[in-house]
Each structure stands twice: as structure tokens, then as C-alpha cells.
């Protein structure tokens, strides 16, 4: 079940990765940008981990674990001899401390909600307790976690960055600045950080996994326009442009066989969708929502982003377990859409608003959507706003339609449940929640809860159940799933390692721990 090391791998060498945006923080309890996500993964470890390049769980800092029959008690046995970057050995106390820390309100962790199934979560989050009652240190190397309800995704949660194990003394030392002075158990440690310019990771010689990492270090250069990064890659100054191939250069790169050979393509756990607010007329009519679903020309939108995606039929991306094979979704059919509108008594169409985040290519996609809607008589005015304003409008339920791009759901972990709760379930439909279509169906919610109460996350019945959930959702059509973005990672010629490492579903853009350089 574990990863087979690459026989060709050679240790040594530094690589350079570039990013446009500055790295906000490297605190695993705080960091929630896709860009620092993989960095934090390399600096820290959680009890659980994924097999590199896959979505398969494997033990991380836990050597082994046991799940009680009712699925509510997890007992983790820690790997012996794991050391933090500061040289101290990791213990069960650290596990408890880390989980308490991420859930305590003072930390303001955006990931705290993931731990809601641990017993005592409510108490700690309303401030009546300062520790999670469900997390117990049994022995110095054993932790027992008790859940308040069965949670099939719990092991995935324990593999999230938010569940990374941090040393208390380092957190105490740096306080809120821990994110600038991270200390973990990961394959790399932070060597240098010049704000706005550069971060340097150095190999952790004491890393607990044998043989890795191969690289001596990674230099991240930030503030680099993707275009500039690509130009520099072409000149051999950069190994991996972290923001990917800029759309403007995509065709040039793919048109040149030499360069195209260095591009790795892969799926990712992403869906781009339009939310249709079921609380706002006339989108409260099912026919209208169906009509809109039928009106969108997904092929065309895919073309606009240079075919770097595949049209979507349902909320789940194809590589996600639980994806319903053979389901065609709503086919592009403007005439049918018009008929549906007429059915709803809106033969003359109507006027609505489409919110979109204001960074390229989202306004462009919104304009394509706008044109498609116009074809069936629906006038959608575009509200292109900063991310925060769109989220605000969506949360408040003011936005009839939102194109999710830029704020969209890249799964936190490879489990179908991750696409439901906050964005399609009743829990997120309240004021301020992320369920922007404000779609709430008690029946579907109950099914989802049931599916998540199963112990084995990959049990076929469970996946079937999730598949049914999403099919039911599609019947109600609160979303227009538009496309699933593909990942294209470009690398310099000297980069080695399996292709899957460059499209690692949980480590974007690449899995730093396992790639190597060939020269």
C-alpha cells in the first residue's frame, strides 16, 4: 500500500519554484491557500498522510491506528523517534496540544470546523473548555481520539494540514508569528524567508522517513508574474512555475514539442460551477434552474480557457470516489432551455445578476455565461468584484448567480463528502454560509449524514450513497457544474521523478518530498 521509492532517484540539488502571491503564513493551523498548502505539507506532518501522487491514505506520524467497531474511537500509535526541527522528540502530548490548538477559537484557524466530530469540539469552540475532551494521551506514544458521531472522513481530516503536529514550545516562543517561524517534523525546514521575495527550504537531515527528501532544498521566489516565471523557466532560471502555465502562453508551450514534453497533465479535485440561488425569484423555480443548466455551453467555456478543463456534469470531479459514471448531466440545448423557461411562464426571459471574482479568467468566463444566457432570453448583469465582496454577497444570499471560479472548491481531501457539507448542505445555507445557492434539502442532508456515519470511507455502499446524493442534488439543479479543471505542471528538464508527483492531487504544484533533480 505504500510508496515504492524511485530507483533512479539521486539525492542532492536545489530547485527553484516561483509564485505570484506572497506566502501568507506557514502556520499549519492557519495556512489555507493552495500555494502554501504544499509547502506546509513538506514542513509538517500529521498522523495520517497520502501515498505520494495518489489520493490513497497511509499512516504518517502514526505508525498504526485502530478504529473501534462503532467507528467512534481512533487509537493512534505514534512512530518512535520522530524529531521536530528543533531536535525534540515528538510525543502524544504534542498531538493533543496540536489538536487543541487548531480548534481553540483564539487560534482563529479556518480549518477548525473539520474537527467538529471530535468529542468536546463544541465546548472548546464556545470557550467553555480549553481542551478537546475527545483527545486523550494514553501513553507517551499512544493517542486516543473519541468522536461524538461516526465520521467516515476522519482519517482524511487527520491528514489535513490543520492536523499537523506542532511543538508547543516553538508556538509559545513565536506566538502569532509562528507562521513566519515554522517548526515541524517535515521533510524540509525553513531556512530563510525574505518577505515579498524568497523562501528557502532546507532538507531535514533527521527526517523520519528513510531516503527522502532527495532535494537539498527548495527556493521559492514570490512576487513573480506567471508570464515572467515561464520566461525564466525557458531560460533555465526556474524549475517549476508554481502558478502553472499562464493561459497566455499555454498554446505556445503546448505547440512546441520540446516544451510540451516537460508538461505533466493530470486531473485535480476541482469543479467550477455556477450557483443558482434557490431563494431568489425566478431561480426558485426548478424549471428555470434546469433551463439555465441546459443553456450553458460548457464546451465553449472550456475552449475559452484553452481546453484546460473537461466539461463537468455533476458536482464531483471524475477522479473523486463516488463520481457517477455514465451520468450525462444537462446537455447543452438552448431550445430545450427556452421551452423550460416557457414552462415556468418566463418565455420572455428575465433579468438577473451574475457575481464573479474579478481576476482573469473569471470575468471572461462570466461573459461567456452571460452570452449563453442571453441566447435563451435571460439577461445576466455581471458583478465583477473582489473575492471578499463576492463571498459576502454569496454568504448573505443576495447573489442570484455566482460563478465559483477563483474561490472554487478544490477538495481539502479526496472524499465525496467534502463537496457536500458547507457548499450544498443545509449547514452552509444559513446567513454567511458558503452554500451560495442556499439550497437545503432535509432528505438529501439525512442521506449525507448517513453516508458519513459509515466507518470505512471507501466502502462501495458508502460511495454509492454519495453518488445518489449528488444525483438527487442534480435533480434539484441548484448548481450548474461547468468544468473540472485539469492541471498542467511544467518543469525544467532536470527535474526527475514520476509524473504523478507533478500532479499530486493533494500537493500542488508538486510533491517536494519525492521529486529530485537529475544533474
Amino acid at each position, binding site marked *: 500500500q505504500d510508496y515504492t521509492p524511485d530507483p533512479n532517484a539521486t539525492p542532492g540539488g536545489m530547485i527553484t519554484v516561483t509564485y505570484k502571491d506572497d506566502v501568507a503564513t506557514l502556520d499549519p493551523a492557519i495556512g489555507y491557500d493552495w500555494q502554501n498548502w504544499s509547502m506546509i505539507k513538506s514542513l509538517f506532518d500529521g498522523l495520517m498522510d497520502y501515498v505520494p501522487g495518489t489520493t490513497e491514505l497511509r499512516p504518517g506520524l502514526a505508525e498504526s491506528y485502530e478504529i473501534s467497531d462503532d467507528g467512534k474511537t481512533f487509537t493512534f500509535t505514534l512512530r518512535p523517534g520522530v524529531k521536530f526541527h528543533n531536535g525534540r522528540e515528538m510525543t502524544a502530548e504534542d498531538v493533543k496540544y496540536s489538536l487543541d490548538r487548531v480548534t481553540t477559537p483564539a487560534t482563529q484557524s479556518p480549518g477548525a470546523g473539520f474537527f467538529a466530530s471530535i468529542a468536546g469540539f463544541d465546548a472548546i469552540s464556545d470557550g467553555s473548555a480549553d481542551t478537546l475532551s475527545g483527545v486523550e494521551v494514553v501513553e507517551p506514544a499512544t493517542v486516543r481520539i473519541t468522536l461524538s458521531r461516526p465520521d467516515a472522513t476522519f482519517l482524511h481530516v487527520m491528514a489535513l494540514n490543520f492536523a499537523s503536529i506542532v511543538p508547543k514550545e516553538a508556538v509559545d516562543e513565536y506566538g*502569532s508569528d509562528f507562521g513566519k517561524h515554522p517548526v515541524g517534523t517535515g521533510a524540509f525546514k525553513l531556512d530563510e524567508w525574505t*518577505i515579498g521575495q524568497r523562501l528557502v527550504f532546507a532538507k531535514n537531515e533527521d527526517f523520519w522517513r528513510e531516503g527522502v527528501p532527495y532535494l537539498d532544498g527548495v527556493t521559492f521566489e514570490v512576487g513573480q508574474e506567471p508570464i*515572467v516565471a515561464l520566461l525564466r523557466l525557458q531560460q533555465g532560471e526556474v524549475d517549476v512555475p508554481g502558478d502553472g502555465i499562464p493561459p497566455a502562453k499555454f498554446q505556445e508551450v503546448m505547440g512546441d514539442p520540446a516544451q510540451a514534453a516537460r508538461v505533466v497533465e493530470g486531473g485535480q479535485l476541482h469543479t467550477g460551477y455556477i450557483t443558482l440561488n434557490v431563494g431568489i425569484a425566478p431561480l426558485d423555480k426548478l424549471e428555470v434552474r434546469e433551463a439555465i443548466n441546459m443553456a450553458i455551453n460548457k464546451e465553449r467555456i472550456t475552449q475559452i480557457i484553452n481546453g484546460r478543463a473537461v466539461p463537468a456534469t455533476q458536482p464531483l470531479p471524475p477522479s473523486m470516489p463516488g463520481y457517477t459514471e455514465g451520468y450525462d448531466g444537462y446537455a447543452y440545448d438552448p431550445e430545450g432551455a427556452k421551452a423550460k423557461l416557457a414552462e415556468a411562464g418566463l418565455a420572455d426571459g428575465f433579468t438577473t445578476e451574475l457575481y464573479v471574482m474579478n481576476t482573469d479568467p473569471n470575468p471572461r468566463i462570466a461573459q461567456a455565461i452571460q452570452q449563453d444566457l442571453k441566447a435563451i432570453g435571460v439577461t445576466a448583469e455581471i458583478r465583477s468584484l473582489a473575492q*471578499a465582496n463576492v463571498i459576502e454577497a454569496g*454568504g448573505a444570499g443576495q447573489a442570484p448567480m455566482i460563478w465559483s471560479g477563483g474561490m472554487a472548491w478544490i477538495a481539502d481531501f479526496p472524499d465525496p463528502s467534502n463537496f457536500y457539507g458547507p457548499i450544498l448542505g443545509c449547514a452552509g445555507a444559513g446567513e454567511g454560509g458558503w452554500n451560495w445557492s442556499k439550497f437545503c434539502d432535509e432528505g438529501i442532508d439525512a442521506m449525507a449524514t448517513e453516508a458519513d456515519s459509515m466507518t470505512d470511507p471507501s466502502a462501495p455502499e458508502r460511495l454509492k450513497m454519495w453518488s445518489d446524493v449528488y444525483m438527487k442534488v442534480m435533480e434539484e439543479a441548484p448548481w450548474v457544474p461547468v468544468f473540472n479543471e485539469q492541471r498542467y505542471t511544467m518543469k525544467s528538464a532536470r527535474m526527475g521523478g514520476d509524473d504523478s508527483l507533478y500532479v499530486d492531487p493533494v500537493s500542488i504544484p508538486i510533491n517536494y518530498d519525492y521529486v529530485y533533480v537529475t544533474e
Partner: protein
Amino acid sequence: MAAYLFRRLVQSALILLGVSFITFVLLYVLPADPVRQIAGRSATQQTVENIRHQLGLDQPMLVQYARYLSGLVQGDMGRSYLQKTEVASLIAARLPASLLLMAGGIACELVIGLSLGVIAALWRGRALDQGLMVTSFVAVSAPQFVVGLLLLYVFAVQLGWFPIGGYGTFAHLVLPSIALGIMGSGWYSRMMRSAMVEVLRQDYIRTARAKGLTRARVILRHALPNAILPIIAMIGIDIGIFMGGMVVVESVFGWPGIGQLAWQAIQRVDIPIIMGVTLVSATAIVLGNLLADIVTPFIDPRIKLR
């Protein structure tokens, strides 16, 4: 002088107070909730309320403002909502780059603008003058980002004379400075030309020539300091206009200045950062104006600071 400085500093402090207040109000009424950004998408309502309370965002605006101010006077600009780091340290890390770019931009603007203006004035009425003035119009009308991209493309990508974006060496500074300064240089060359034409008409220039001084000395020592006076005041005003250009140029050239910091913060309503950046740039503008006023008497002894 001391009295003057004192009064100006008090005035400046009041201006900054006003700026901070207006910004605070604007951010307060902005339809975006920072807590949503902090809490993340899977947060429960409870968590959201907790965070709101912790940050004091559930209090009346004036109370929030008063708290911010009291922190500010103790030198605490607060912590970033999303990065949790001290705003002061974030700004401090990026300010040098911004100041450097600003200095580069202003230097470029002045060097190009003033020298072209002087040349045009000396050749006034001839073809060279007219050519230069049309050029200056073009410069004034040229969008900074187009200029920036063009420079980047021609001099960095095609010719390879300069690095493609980035920060660190003098070579990195050249293109962004030009992109930033080119608009102002057109403007200054026009101002300089008319100031210079005016000064060259003055009696004291004739006196200087009647003394048998060399042309260079007449122009550099006698005409220039007089002609530059109206321009110094302009530089003070200019800094405000500059700030806008910096955001664009920083983004084109990947320059690690506060413009990029501000842009990211605005996208995600990281209010402490926005406040910090606003105050820092306001301070730069205020100080720039003050500096211009203080420098003037050194060039023109007729002006007394009172």
C-alpha cells in the same frame, strides 16, 4: 525653522488622523466581512462569532477606531487578519523595495524630464524643441502598464539587457523605474521647458553672461536652480499620483513592494494591512510635501519658512 517644523508636523499628524479615520469608515461600510475570510468555508456560526468577538469586530465602529488609534500611538499597527503577522513587520519588509522604486521612478522622471526640458528650452522654437515637446506629450499620454510590458518585452526578453522582473540588483531597478517615471518625465519636461524659458529671459541671466561666464555655468549654476523652484513643489504633489502607478508597475515587474501587499489585502479585506499601507503611503505623501517645502528655502533664500 523649529517652530515651523513643529507646526507642520502637528498639521501632518492631523492630516494622517483624518486619513486614518476616513479609511476606517470606508472599510467599515465596505460590503465584505473579514471574518468570513478568516474563518474559512467550513467554519460553524459559533466559530465565526468567536472570531468576530476576539477581533472586536462586533463593537461599534467608533470603539473599534479608538482601539486602533490607541494601538497606533503605541506603535502597534495591529496584526494581519489572515497572516496573523504584525502589519508593521510586513510593511517594514516591503517598504524598502517600494521606496527604492519610488526613488528610482522620481530620479528617472527628473533626470529625463528636466534634461529634456532644459534642452528644449535652449533650442526653443527650433525643430528639436518641437520634436521633444511632441515626445513629451506622448510620454504623458502613455499608459504605464503598456510601457512596462513593452520595456519588459523588448529590453528583458528580446534583448536580454535586463533581468525579467524581480528585485535585488541595480539592473532590476532600471526598467521599473523607467516605466514608472516616463509619464512624469513628459510632464516635467514641459514644466521645465516653460520655467527655463522664463528664467532665461531674466535679467540676471544676462548679467551672468555679461560677466563672461561659460554657457554651461550660466545654465547649470544660474538658470537651473531658479527654474527648478516651481518643480520642487510639483514633486510634493506628485508623490500621491505616484502611489497609483506603483501598484501597476510593481505587478508588471514582480517588484516586492507594498503595492502588491495592499492589492492582496484588498482582495481579502485584510483591514489591518489596508489601514497600515494607507497610513504609510499617506505619511510618504505628507512627508514628501513637507520635504519639498523644507528644501525650497535652501534653493531659494527669498522663501522663509514661517
